[in-house]
């Protein structure tokens, strides 16, 4: 049974429609890769799906209820990581990881947070301010949230950007694990052959004619 059903969804910037309307359905354990040229509106579409923006054209249903009406349920079940990592440069890694999730009502103990940092390869950086991390490490810090949450739907905007080879491998393993656990994945990525193996659906955004 499809859990997410999108019908003729597109995004607008001012008066212009960004891309040809797209439709897709996703069930448990399925994943969607959104690709397309730079500036076509991948991020805008992802932010609309996540609920950061409103859906301007078409509609999306979650568990057969329109997203506009099931917002709370959707927010409880979906997790979004965008281009902006959401890290505070004046907080250290532990504080960043814990406060971000606690603000969403997800309790994270110090021990859990330390384990999560260990998993993403930030062991030893617990008390380092996020402002002094490299771009790749900042990304890892944001992705560490994924190891602490129980949301079914993961919405990730270019999660592989800035990661080194080991980081990509780790993330790929994590995403595969999530899909195997009946999770749903919606992701944008530029050509990355190894992610394609697990992807069940693919959308290529095209210019509105």
């Amino acid at each position, binding site marked *: 049974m499809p859990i997410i059903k999108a019908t003729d969804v597109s995004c607008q910037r001012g008066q212009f429609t960004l891309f040809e309307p797209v439709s897709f359905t996703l069930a448990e354990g399925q994943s969607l890769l959104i690709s397309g040229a730079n500036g076509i509106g991948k991020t805008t579409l992802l*932010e609309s799906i996540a609920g950061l923006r409103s859906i301007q054209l078409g509609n999306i249903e979650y568990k057969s209820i329109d997203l506009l009406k099931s917002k709370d349920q959707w*927010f409880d079940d979906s997790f979004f990581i*965008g281009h902006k*990592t*959401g890290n*505070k440069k*004046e*907080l250290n890694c532990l504080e960043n990881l814990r406060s971000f999730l606690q603000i*969403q*009502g997800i309790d994270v103990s110090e021990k859990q947070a330390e384990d999560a940092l260990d998993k993403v390869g930030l062991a030893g950086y617990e008390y380092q301010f996020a402002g002094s991390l490299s771009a790749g490490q900042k990304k890892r810090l944001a992705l560490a949230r994924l190891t602490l949450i129980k949301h079914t739907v993961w919405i990730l905007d270019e999660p592989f950007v800035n990661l080194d080879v080991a980081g990509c491998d780790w993330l790929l393993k994590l995403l595969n694990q999530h899909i195997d656990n009946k999770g749903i994945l919606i992701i944008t990525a530029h050509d990355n052959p190894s992610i394609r193996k697990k992807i069940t659906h693919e959308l290529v955004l095209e210019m509105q004619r």
Partner: protein
Amino acid sequence: MKPFLSLVKRDLTLGLRKKSQIYQPLVFQLLVVTMFPLGLGSGAKTLALIAPAVIWILALLASLLTLDQIFKNDYDDGSVESYVLTSYPLSMAVMAKVLAHWLLTGLPLVLFAPVLGVLLHLPSSSYGVLMLSLLIGTPIFSFIGSIGSALTMSLKHGGLLLTVLVMPLLAPVLIFGAGAVVESALGNSASQHLLLLSGMLVLSFTLVPFASAAAIKINLE
């Protein structure tokens, strides 16, 4: 309640690590106040006469210095998403942000006011009313300011626009706040002014969180 407290705690931690937000408004007030006797060139009587207005205007201007920061930093680094994309009401997050902002910038203004009072020869009998009026008035600055901050958070230099937006809304606060201190300096009861101020605080406490939450959502479009 937990997300609310976590957000307050996070913002207080941030504020205490970046202390400029706390002492800048106070230094600004002190510098301007010391200019008044020099510019006016007159005695204690004139100073005492203008003291209530000067202290209140300075409190207003000093809060304006930090108002744009309420949401701007969170927008810039993306952490605004942490409280937008949840089933917890966004208006509660606004409350938490406003509370933290007031504790970091409003409360110091209240505690610092007697120093300005001394420098301007404010009659000592008015100190209580001065602090009380600021205690009621400065949270209104933070509340109303949060609307302006939410509306301008995506702009690079939104400071002036924010000032133009919120100044007219803050004028009544200034009128009754300074009015209360004037009345007490004249030996009258300040309770009418203080009650009106309290009314404004209740009004902003109940309405502003929804307005700011709507402004945040508009800005993310």
